[in-house]
């Protein structure tokens, strides 16, 4: 408590000014790729429930800048979506 009162004027003004390099960056807005990581679902042409999330209403594949999917997984996704289209699943 005492420290906060002592802190210079910049700290009082905004929340972000108090951030230092050593704090965990809670305030970064970058989301992680939802398909990579340990508990990620498997990308497969049979997994229609997953594929439908990454397809627009008109059936187009959504770009990775919107869905935040990594490059590697986006390639897998687009391949498996095209396979599912061929089988008339999507």
């Amino acid at each position, binding site marked *: 408590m005492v420290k906060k009162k002592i802190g210079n004027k910049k700290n009082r003004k905004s929340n972000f000014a108090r951030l230092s390099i050593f704090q965990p960056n809670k305030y970064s807005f970058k989301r992680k790729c939802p398909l990579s990581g340990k*508990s990620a*679902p498997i990308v497969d042409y049979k*997994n*229609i*429930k997953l594929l439908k999330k990454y397809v627009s209403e008109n059936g187009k594949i959504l770009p990775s800048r919107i869905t935040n999917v990594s490059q590697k997984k986006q390639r897998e996704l687009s391949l498996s979506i095209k396979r599912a289209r*061929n*089988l*008339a*699943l999507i």
Partner: protein
Amino acid sequence: MNLYEHTIIAKQDVSASDIKKLTEKYSKIVEKNDGNIVKTENWGLLKLSYTIKKNKKGNYIHFKIKGASKIIGQLEKDEKIDEKLLRYMTVKVKKFDLQTNYFSKQEDGVEIDNKKTAKKL
């Protein structure tokens, strides 16, 4: 030896006994060419997302095949001529996923559970 996933779509008005005949017919072809069928799945009558040759629904049959590449050539040669079929597709895979069934009704509940846990994490 390679691993293949092979799916065929039969027309909507094909009877259940004919589907059995189809599966037997194509599994015989595989066995003749020294192949091995690891698993066959019958996904049942599914709704097609677009009409194919005036069919709105289709019977899906899925094979998991282990064998040489000439088997696929033989299979597709016969399937091209077959009038009961609408489509066929083969995919070469590195590993078979024998645990998850995406098209059976029992597994639907499990899939939802998996999603819930994924969200928590």
